[in-house]
């Protein structure tokens, strides 16, 4: 049986009839179309299709691995890049002023109706770019922390960034009219809180993951309580603060793109640089150390890079939830747990997701804060992911 299967692999589509029968008997095969698609795509785009993974060798011949993947990491990268481009186009095409594609095209090239040009260039494009930048930052920050803490429930806000940034922002928004200072204060608050959490978790013998998580939870609870008190006391400014706490991209423009963009691009680079260390950390502490990873230093560096990325995102967009939690799980389904691919692809997927959520948030009669959309999208998706993983075993 496996012999015909191998022959079919080599022959691709040529011997279709032969191909569609035998491999189905191997364990875990879902449907023949997938096999056909693989056979063909393998020949046309060898780089894009995952060659090593779907055909896993099992005892007694070849068969299918437990988890099936269609695309290689490079293929997935291409797919995500085209998604990002598509979402960007849709994002600048949709809005309260409807535009046909030729009008949009003209406006993009600086021709035609000047109002449309302004709308596209000054309102929609920076906002779309910002959504992608923030999504990328949150996606990578989530992947970094999930890897460093070895915990799939970690999100970019676990180490106290949300609480610190939230407290700083709520304080400024409720105690006075210092709206302009909110981004800076939120950034500083988020990063300082992470430093505080690390300080609390530190022991002479190193930096244990459990202590980091506990310290993060404790600090978050305390700061959250103070924020809530401030919100209760300042009833007239609650609306503004609440919108910020949920996360919103409304009214952001080029200045935010430039500042946040610079910070985020630096952070993405630094984060990607930690990929190999994260791969080794996923083997457990003992193995990581014996493979030459300085444990405490690596944990500090990764935590700070994640805090840098998340704090930048938060300072511009408020506390947009779920992106950093869900995206790494999505990407892991596609590329496995190799952080050299997981990190950059989490950034790309985060960009796509947040940008898409931003489009959805603007579709209704009133604009929703994007944080609500990501939560509404993210929660059922997470459930689906859990269900699928359970069924796969």
């Amino acid at each position, binding site marked *: 049986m496996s012999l015909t299967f191998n022959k079919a692999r080599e022959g691709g589509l040529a011997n279709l009839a032969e191909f569609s029968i035998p491999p189905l008997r191997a364990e875990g095969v879902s449907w023949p179309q997938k096999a056909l698609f693989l056979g063909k795509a393998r020949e046309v785009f060898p780089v894009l299709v995952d060659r*090593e993974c779907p055909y896993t*060798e099992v005892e007694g011949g070849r068969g299918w*691995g437990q988890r099936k993947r269609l695309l290689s990491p490079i293929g997935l990268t291409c797919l995500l890049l085209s998604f990002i481009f598509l979402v960007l186009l849709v994002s600048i095409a949709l809005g309260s002023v409807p535009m046909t594609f030729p009008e949009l095209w003209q406006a993009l090239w600086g021709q035609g109706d000047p109002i449309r040009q302004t709308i596209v260039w000054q309102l929609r494009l920076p906002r779309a770019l910002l959504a992608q930048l923030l999504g990328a930052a949150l996606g990578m920050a989530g992947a970094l922390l999930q890897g460093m803490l070895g915990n799939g429930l970690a999100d970019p806000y676990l180490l106290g960034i949300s609480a610190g940034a939230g407290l700083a922002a709520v304080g400024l928004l409720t105690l006075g009219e210092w709206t302009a200072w909110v981004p800076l204060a939120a950034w500083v608050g988020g990063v300082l809180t992470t430093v505080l959490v690390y300080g609390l978790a530190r022991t002479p013998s190193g930096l244990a993951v459990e202590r980091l998580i506990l310290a993060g939870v404790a600090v978050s609870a305390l700061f959250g309580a103070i924020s809530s008190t401030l919100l209760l006391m300042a009833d007239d400014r609650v609306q503004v603060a609440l919108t910020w706490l949920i996360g919103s991209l409304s009214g952001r423009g080029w200045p935010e793109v430039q500042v946040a963009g610079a910070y985020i691009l630096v952070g993405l680079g630094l984060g990607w640089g930690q990929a*190999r260390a994260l791969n080794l950390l996923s083997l457990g502490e*003992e*193995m990581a150390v014996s493979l*030459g990873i300085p444990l405490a230093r690596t944990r500090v560096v990764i935590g700070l890079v994640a805090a840098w990325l998340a704090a930048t995102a938060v300072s511009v967009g408020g506390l947009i939830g779920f992106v950093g939690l869900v995206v790494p799980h999505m990407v892991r389904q596609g590329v496995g*747990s190799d952080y050299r691919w997981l990190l950059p692809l989490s950034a790309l997927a985060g960009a796509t997701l947040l940008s898409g959520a931003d489009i959805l948030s603007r579709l209704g009669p009133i604009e929703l804060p994007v944080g609500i959309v990501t939560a509404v999208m993210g929660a059922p998706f997470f459930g689906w992911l859990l269900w699928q993983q359970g069924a796969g075993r």
Partner: protein
Amino acid sequence: MREPILQVEDLSGGYGSRTVLRQVSFSVQKGEWLSIVGPNGSGKSTVLRLLSRVLIPQAGRVYLGGRDLHAQLTPKQVARQLALLPQQQRLPAGLTVRQLVSLGRSPHQPWWAWQLTPADRQRVEWALEQTGLGSLALRRVETLSGGERQRAFLALALVQEPQVLLLDEPTTFLDLRHQLELLELLQRLKQEQGLTVVTVLHDLNLAIRYSEQIALLGSGQMQALGSPLAVLTPSRVRQVFGLEVEWISTPVGPQLCPLRSTAPSAARLLSLPLSGC
């Protein structure tokens, strides 16, 4: 006398403020096999954790190739000379055996390296072949059996090109056949490659059979150090393990035959450190 590759001087260590290991000294020559034996809780694993830098010593020094392991060498420099096979391994999901084993090259790669060089790949294939994993290279690690998993992590350690290999109770989760296969493989690597082996072993007879040197630990202190026959005298085994034993000769050389426990507690009876004779 030659310079020992691994030299431990008055090493003390433990967890937090608790000291588990007190002033232990020993040295290992290149190409030698040292087994650390002792009852449960005697600090065997702590020695390995100190040697592999997972723990920082409370006092004392460890010299690797003449240089201080904790003060003079960087983590990466240590990882190029010394590898560890931990007792329990954490498996990242979704890696193939070859990908897992390739991670062992990291200490030899510069920080900007994205992929393995051809020389690295050659080493990976060599290690897969040595451990008999060549046909399983494309298997996902989570589908491996206990013995195969142990071999995969051994291959990972071999890919590090270590001069010293530390093993923490490598035979614990293996059946008798796989125990022998693993130790035979180590012995071959020791003879062919000049690998130095330092292993914690529960089974005294396996330790006797394969090691040149045995370090007997009891309640955190070195009780005896030397050749198996000199260290594991019946009186000393009775004193440290609470076990009556007798040396007998077998086709594989002298082995210990357990007679009875000298302490009548059930806990002792359940943890006989011998596999029969």
